[in-house]
């Protein structure tokens, strides 16, 4: 009798041990396979066939058509190439001078289609400091690219003149303010100098909602790390940018200002949109990596209270120089 109960106790101990092991195994498996540890796999994006419907044309363009005898360009030009494009990484200074002349680019890096009135009036604002090589490659690639899309555009390079940490967000605010002094652009694209769009179907125009353009970046294996990402290249309408009060002016150093901007947009009831992953393919030009700023998390937390008080309405800066170079409008700023 004693041995039988002994065996029963032994078996139940074994069963308990197996049970504990299987629970632990399942727990470890759930931790390993949890979706939040990985890139965002199914995020909502605009379907390729819906892109034309989602684009928001400029109301100013219709007025221009009445004045001139040129027709209105179509929202998306026909017969755009669908293959993946790559930048030419060996660009010389001489090639850039030749480029402005060959492509009929007006002074200040502006261009509009000669045969029709474009429905997109875009200001491309690029924050800049000490990336000469990347700028040369970017400019030689982007001008033919944008011209194929039949846009009325101008490229602004906003350079930080003050020494110290780089404040990308404030430079973008400055670019917005300076661009509006030149022309009432209805669409703004805030773009990093080292991003190269690889598909011509990736229209550099604004959609009804603010759009995260660089959703499929080669350094992220062409995946989107998390759905709230809003850095790299974004397209936003002028009225929407004014509504969210632009970027925060306090983010000195690398990191955080794009997440703050995304919070401002969500706070105002707008949603982010993206083009399909195979359309929004970008390649990043290599450069030395920046060290992340220590303050970025603190700034993000405190930034939530500053949406109304910190932005384009409280922007203070001094323009040191403003030059209309052949391929871009250069603004040297003292922040």
């Amino acid at each position: 009798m004693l041995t039988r109960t002994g065996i029963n106790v032994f078996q139940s101990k074994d069963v308990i041990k197996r049970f504990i092991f299987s629970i632990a195994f399942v727990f470890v498996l759930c931790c390993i396979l949890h979706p939040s540890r990985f890139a965002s796999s199914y995020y909502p994006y605009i379907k390729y066939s819906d892109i034309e419907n989602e684009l928001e044309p400029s109301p100013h363009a219709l007025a221009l058509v009445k004045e001139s005898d040129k027709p209105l360009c179509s929202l998306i030009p026909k017969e755009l190439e669908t293959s993946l494009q790559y930048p030419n990484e060996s660009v010389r200074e001489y090639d850039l001078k030749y480029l402005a002349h060959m492509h009929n680019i007006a002074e200040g890096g502006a261009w509009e289609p000669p045969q029709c009135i474009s429905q997109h009036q875009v200001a491309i604002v690029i924050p800049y400091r000490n990336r000469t090589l990347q700028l040369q490659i970017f400019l030689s690639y982007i001008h033919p690219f944008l011209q194929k899309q039949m846009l009325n555009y101008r490229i602004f390079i906003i350079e930080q003149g003050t020494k110290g940490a780089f404040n990308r967000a404030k430079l973008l605010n400055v670019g917005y303010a300076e661009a509006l002094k030149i022309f009432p652009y209805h669409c703004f694209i805030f773009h990093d100098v080292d991003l190269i769009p690889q598909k011509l179907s990736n229209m550099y125009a604004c959609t009804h909602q603010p759009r995260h353009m660089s959703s499929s970046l080669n350094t992220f294996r062409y995946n989107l790390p998390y759905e709230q990402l809003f850095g790299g290249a974004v397209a936003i309408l002028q009225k929407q940018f004014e509504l969210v009060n632009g970027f925060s002016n306090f983010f000195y150093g690398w990191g955080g200002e794009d997440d703050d901007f995304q919070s401002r947009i969500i706070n105002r009831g707008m949603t982010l949109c993206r083009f399909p992953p195979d359309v929004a393919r970008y390649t990043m030009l290599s450069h030395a990596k920046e060290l992340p700023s220590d303050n970025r998390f603190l700034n993000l937390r405190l930034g939530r209270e500053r949406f109304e008080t910190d932005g384009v309405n409280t922007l203070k800066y001094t323009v040191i120089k403003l030059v209309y170079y052949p391929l871009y409008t250069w603004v040297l700023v003292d922040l």
Partner: protein
Amino acid sequence: MGKEEWQDNSPLCCCEYWNVEQERSHILGCCCNCEDLDESVERIIVCERVPFQRVTDIMSTFQDRLRIPWRGGAKQISIDSALPIFLQPLLAYIAAQSVWCTVLVSMVMLLSMCYLYSVFVQFLPRTKFFFVWTLTSAVLLLLVFELSVVPFLEIMPHENCVLMGLVVSSGICFYKVRTRADLSCVVHANVGDETELVCSVYRRRFPPSTFHCRICQACVIKRDIHCVWLDCCIGDKNHQLFVFGVLFSAGALVYGAILTITTVCHPSFYIMETVLLPDDCSDVYHDFMIALCFVSSIYCIVIAFLLLILLGHQCWLITLGMTGQEWRCVQGYTWCAALRSDRPHSRGLLCNWKNFLSCRKSVREGQARSKEGSMNSA
């Protein structure tokens, strides 16, 4: 007499053990009470020569006290089993410092592995070094992937599932290869008689290709190779699983390496935007964790390359209907020479593959014939 009287004979706790002098000791006491070490240090301080006998005594005490806690008493671990566990992280750390460190460590590791392997085959102590190396590699690579590469948020969930599936399949295959290795061995009445001659008797009758394995100390039916990396013989019952295990592990290594290297380097699309391969790896060594991921993916690629050569060789032998042992007996020792040799057990290309993939039939046949053989010998 007195010693045995007061010695406590209750069951050992997990950290206790019986040492060489049959005394009950504890792991925590490993640094205490070593007379040989005390005397040697005294001699060194006084600048006297330490006799060689003392050194060997210290080494044997060290080996005796090198134990890990285990249920029913602390288990002794030999130095060659523990070595890979310390050596691999150290080599990975050194290799991740710069490009030249990686190249140097790879050369040193390859050469020393070749040397150790040849030494092992010649002198035949049954060591667990290679098996523990395999286990440590697998664990470290998995840890590097899950704790270093995945947090970059660049791997998709389905890619991770595919990789884990391949890893688990190869793990199951190799586990079964090890557990079924004994089934391929012919159990003999007198263990001491397991020699080449005894196995040659079996070879003349069915089952075919029974050869003696000096390391396993047994006759193995349809002996292919002795796999030191799994520490078992590959014979009749586990050959199919072995080949599938090699296939799955090569696939897992290649896939894991591609995922890792496209995460840490700049990738680019190839073959009509389908395959993502690394393009520019120039700045991987600026950060230690990124360099570690890169080094582990290089290691995966090298191992996968060797495994694919092994897989190709195995497929070639299956096509010819030979086992590895028979191939090694062929004069010339090349892949082409095997084609020209007479292969008594080959039934043609398709039949050989059919026999390999449906191994149950040949097993049953072999079992029936071995029963017949043993009955006849009795």
